[in-house]
């Protein structure tokens, strides 16, 4: 019926007022608000950078295979089992075992207590899948073995990424995992991500190794080029010291040579190792290798036991600062590739906001003018409902601190256009009912009841589309789906509670009037 209890009127009024208040907290900055929530602006509106990084796990997998090969070699030797032809081929480890030992060796890899092929209880799977063909054993990473590698490298990488971004000191960065080999970095307000990109693009794997002349070093040697790409040197694979042992690194001006250097401090273990190596290596050249390139290769004059040192290498002050930052924040477990980048300048963001607000205002005005001319007093009710609906929508977005994007604004405008639909359906139905029913109040009531299924069905279909968009869409599009979906709920609330209340009050007052609508 069209009569409402006082309680209902109070609840509807209070709810509406509450949301109007919450919504308006976006526009004013009152001091004593109980809520200091705000709608977040998406990167497309406030300007900023969105970077999607993918971890290249290839090198880690190769390393892991090499380590496992060594482990298998030692393990089998330990157990006095003869094996031949142990090698890595196409991401798998191959070796041959003679007939007598096949079953025994098989157990080494398939036992749940296996020491060389760890069993992950949570996945019910070993790290490696074993297949035996005749005498040949073949080990390949199992599905979960790969997952495990990816997860752990992602965990490490996100930590390093966070440190590096924090060191640069941007405003409220957002760093999140995506899948198991990606990292999303959102940098609001940053319109030139160049520096961050170059910092994140470096693994920063630092090692100190001796330069050698003979290529029969016990650890093996490799030829590495200098950073200028012109010269190269033969460097031992034996790592004296790595970036892990660094406590601190800072750019510094060397007063004697007037050159920018990176000075570093080693931890206790590092200092000891460095001292020992430099003592025995006086006169030798020490290569400082960063990501496979030699930064510099100074000759050791004295043993360095203090745990302090300097890296020189044609740095500008900027590049020395960046290198120190990279060394302080640690090495990435694997290289990161930027696979998606979206940057919006703050002025474009502001332009988009302005355009959105203008479009919203004009769209809203057009709709309310149209509605007023079409339905007069009921148009006015629909318009009040529409305005309150807008506040409800913004209020809810504020309450959940949702992110508003440019397509999100479009979603709000679209809601304005579509929100009148429910009221129109009701009004048109009431009009029809009025033709047969002389009692205005009954006509109104029937109008509301009979239009219900159409309204519910129509809104659910839009809601389905919005939900699918939310789960499948990314970034800005997600913002659109959120406003669209929230808009459906606020529309239904405002139509069935606010508009119904207002029409009810009006109809009850004018129940004798003919041609009411």
């Amino acid at each position: 019926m069209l009569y409402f209890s006082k309680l209902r009127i109070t609840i509807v009024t209070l709810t509406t007022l509450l949301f109007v208040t919450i919504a308006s907290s976006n526009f004013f900055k009152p001091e004593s608000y109980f809520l200091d929530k705000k709608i977040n602006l998406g990167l497309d509106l406030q300007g900023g950078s969105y970077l999607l990084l993918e971890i290249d796990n290839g090198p880690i997998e190769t390393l892991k295979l090499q380590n496992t090969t060594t482990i298998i070699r030692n393990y089998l030797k330990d157990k006095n089992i003869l094996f031949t032809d142990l090698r890595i081929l196409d991401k798998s480890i191959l070796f041959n075992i003679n007939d007598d030992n096949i079953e025994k060796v098989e157990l080494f890899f398939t036992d749940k207590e296996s020491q060389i092929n760890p069993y992950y209880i949570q996945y019910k799977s070993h790290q490696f899948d074993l297949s035996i063909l005749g005498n040949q054993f073949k080990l390949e990473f199992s599905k979960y073995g790969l997952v495990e590698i990816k997860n752990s490298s992602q965990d490490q990488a996100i930590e390093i990424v966070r440190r590096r971004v924090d060191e640069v000191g941007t405003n409220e960065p957002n760093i999140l995992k995506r899948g198991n080999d990606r990292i999303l970095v959102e940098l609001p307000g940053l319109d030139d991500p160049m520096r961050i990109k170059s910092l994140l693009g470096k693994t920063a794997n630092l090692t100190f190794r001796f330069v050698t002349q003979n290529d029969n070093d016990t650890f093996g040697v490799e030829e590495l080029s200098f950073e200028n790409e012109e010269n190269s040197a033969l460097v031992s694979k034996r790592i004296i010291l790595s970036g892990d042992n660094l406590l601190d690194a800072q750019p510094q001006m060397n007063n004697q040579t007037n050159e920018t250097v990176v000075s570093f401090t080693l931890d206790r273990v590092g200092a000891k190792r460095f001292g020992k190596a430099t003592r025995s290596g006086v006169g030798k050249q020490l290569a400082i290798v960063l990501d496979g390139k030699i930064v510099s290769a100074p000759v050791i004059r004295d043993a360095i036991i203090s745990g302090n040192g300097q890296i020189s290498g044609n740095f500008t002050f900027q590049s020395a600062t960046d290198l120190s930052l990279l060394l302080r924040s640690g090495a990435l477990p694997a290289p990161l590739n930027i696979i998606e980048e979206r940057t919006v300048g703050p002025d474009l963001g502001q332009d988009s906001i302005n355009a959105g607000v203008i479009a919203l205002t004009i769209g809203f005005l057009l709709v309310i003018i149209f509605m007023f001319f079409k339905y007069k007093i009921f148009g006015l009710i629909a318009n009040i409902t529409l305005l309150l609906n807008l506040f409800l929508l913004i209020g809810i977005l504020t309450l959940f601190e949702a992110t508003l994007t440019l397509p999100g604004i479009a979603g709000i405008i679209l809601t304005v256009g579509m929100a009148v639909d429910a009221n129109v359906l009701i009004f048109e139905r009431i009009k029809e009912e009025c033709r047969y029913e002389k009692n205005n109040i009954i006509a109104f009531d029937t109008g509301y009841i009979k239009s219900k299924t159409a309204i519910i069905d129509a809104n659910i279909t839009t809601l389905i589309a919005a939900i699918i968009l939310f789960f499948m869409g990314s970034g800005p599009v997600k913002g659109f789906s959120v406003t669209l979906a929230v808009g459906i709920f606020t529309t239904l609330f405002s139509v069935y509670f606010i508009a119904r209340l207002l029409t009810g009050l009006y109809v009850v007052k004018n129940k004798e009037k003919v041609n009411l609508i």
Partner: protein
Amino acid sequence: MINFNKFYKLFNLISAILVILSIIFLLFKGLNFGVDFKGGTIIELRVSDKQINISTLRKSFNDMNLGDVNVKKFGNERDFLIMFEKKDIKPDNIETIKKNLTLSIGNSFNFRRVENVGPKVSSELLKSGIIAIVLSLAAMLFYIWIRFEWQFSLGAILALFHDVIITLGFFSLLGLEINLSIVAAVLTIVGYSMNDTVVIFDRVRENLRKFSDIKIFELTNISINETLSRTIITSTTTLLALVSIYLFGGEILKGFSLAMILGVVFGTYSSIYIANPVLVFFGVSQKTILKEDK
């Protein structure tokens, strides 16, 4: 009362022709995928020097060896959109482009927006876009099937395909760019078109219960007429909102709002001339509905 059903045949023919034309365009001309789905780089650039025009920019960018570079105006005289499809994203390529551009046209420009999408991401986005559209069509089909009868479901789905295919056909014809927001628009069209169809179907169902002696051919016409003023008013207000986004919402939302405008126009039309003739075709009667009620 307007005799909509008199024109069922004529408009079905027109729709069929439009759909076939759209499919031909989609097959042979294809869609103009933007960097979201094709991979590559977009740079939105604003110049402050009036001397710089589209051809100087084109020349400068062509000299940079970036492959096929597309330069176009973006909204006004000072804004340009540069698109190219270089596959590998090096962390410093934007910086290099900036430097090269400064060398050739001076520094009276700034990059307002840069989007760089790698081939892997773009193919994933395309895949998830297609999945989203297919999924929403399936969900709608399912929902209508539950709420109504299968004949209604089929009618609604045909209307949806009609709207989506023709909208995409228009985009193909005009060579407009398909990006992520167009997928959002298409999904919203799906929702809207459905919304419109459901309102008329709801009335058809109600009338089927009320009148046992009126044939479906007449009945759809009555139902369309009864809901006509609502159809017109809602499409009008929605279009008012969308036109306002198209005209004032900025360059970035142009494609999105255009797709929506087309979708609303065709969605409204198809509810009348696609969805309802399907009910007529299958001879839906009171029996069809009563079976459901039992």
